[in-house]
């Protein structure tokens, strides 16, 4: 262990433990999947950074979205994100989730992922090299240290706006709101706060 970090460990051990054991769930569409296998296997070995892939969103605290996001995918992404336990961080990988990328005029691909779920970090490129994931991870450590990786807090706070944006694309989302949306002008239903 780095001696310089001992004070940090003593001050907030939970945060430090959280930071160095990122259990990641990958959401790979299109070319995103090509970069992930070398990252998690022997060649680049993400476990050096404490990043390990897990089977289900319920065990994960880092959500890596790699590749373009189509409408059907977005539905799955929202469901996956809402199932993850807090604290949870989102990193989007590649230029497509940032602004559409090469799908900027596609009829079925969403352009800005941060309109629908909060995103803590972006890794730009088409596609970025696997090393970029590690640069992103170390940046995320800094953000967690400074408590700037607060996507899940913002999601709670602005849930009404996020839910409204989601419902602009899907008229029938198929699941109840995760948090209360009482600050809506038409008044969210009382059972809305129950969530899942």
């Amino acid at each position: 262990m780095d001696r310089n970090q001992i004070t940090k460990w003593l001050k907030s051990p939970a945060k430090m433990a959280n930071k160095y054991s990122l259990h990641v769930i990958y959401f790979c569409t299109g070319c995103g999947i090509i970069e992930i296998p070398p990252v998690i296997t022997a060649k680049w070995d993400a476990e050096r950074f404490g990043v390990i892939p897990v089977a289900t969103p319920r065990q994960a605290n880092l959500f890596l979205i790699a590749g373009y996001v189509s409408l059907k995918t977005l539905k799955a992404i929202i469901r996956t994100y809402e199932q993850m336990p807090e604290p949870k961080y989102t990193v989007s990988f590649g230029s497509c989730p940032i602004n559409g990328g090469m799908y900027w005029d596609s009829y079925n691909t969403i352009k800005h992922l941060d309109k629908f779920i909060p995103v803590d970090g972006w890794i730009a490129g088409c596609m970025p090299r696997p090393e970029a994931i590690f640069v992103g991870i170390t940046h995320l450590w800094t953000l967690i240290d400074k408590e700037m990786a607060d996507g899940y807090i913002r999601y709670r706070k602005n849930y009404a706006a996020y839910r409204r944006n989601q419902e602009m694309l899907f008229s029938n989302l198929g699941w109840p709101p995760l948090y209360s949306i009482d600050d809506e002008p038409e008044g969210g239903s009382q059972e809305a706060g129950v969530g899942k």
Partner: protein
Amino acid sequence: MSFSLKDNLESTFKDVQVSMPEDTRMAIFVPRETAFAVLRYLSDKGFDHLALVSCVDWQEEGKFEIVYILTSYMRNNTDYIPEQRLHLFLKTRISRKNPELKSVIDVFENAEPYEREIHELFGVHFEGHPRLIPLFLEREYEIPPFRKDFDNRKYVEETFNSIPSVED
């Protein structure tokens, strides 16, 4: 084999144009009324593998062109000669205003998802298809998105770019 097939097709069906762009490739143009019968005939002849059903939008001519690509497996094709392995495509044109065609699921079972896809992306109605429900798309489109008159940029502007950002 290919030349006898050409003669057979031309003598059996009228209005069928058969051409051979290459030695191993055969193009068949049929009117929409006889398309189903020709496909059944080819299936009986040993072309039992439907590789693809596709659609082309000829906007200026007001037509949709449905393309069936067929190949044959050796075991079923008695006339098979390795040097003359045949790649066959069948094209038929249907009206763009009222796009309807008989489904070929009775002959080639694997046409089902292809026809669903064409129905969803081009708006072609296939008579006799058991379930013409959406395959890929989540939203409903006024104009099916693969038609030439579907304006991608306008749609993106109205649908995706009009959604406000949540923060700053």
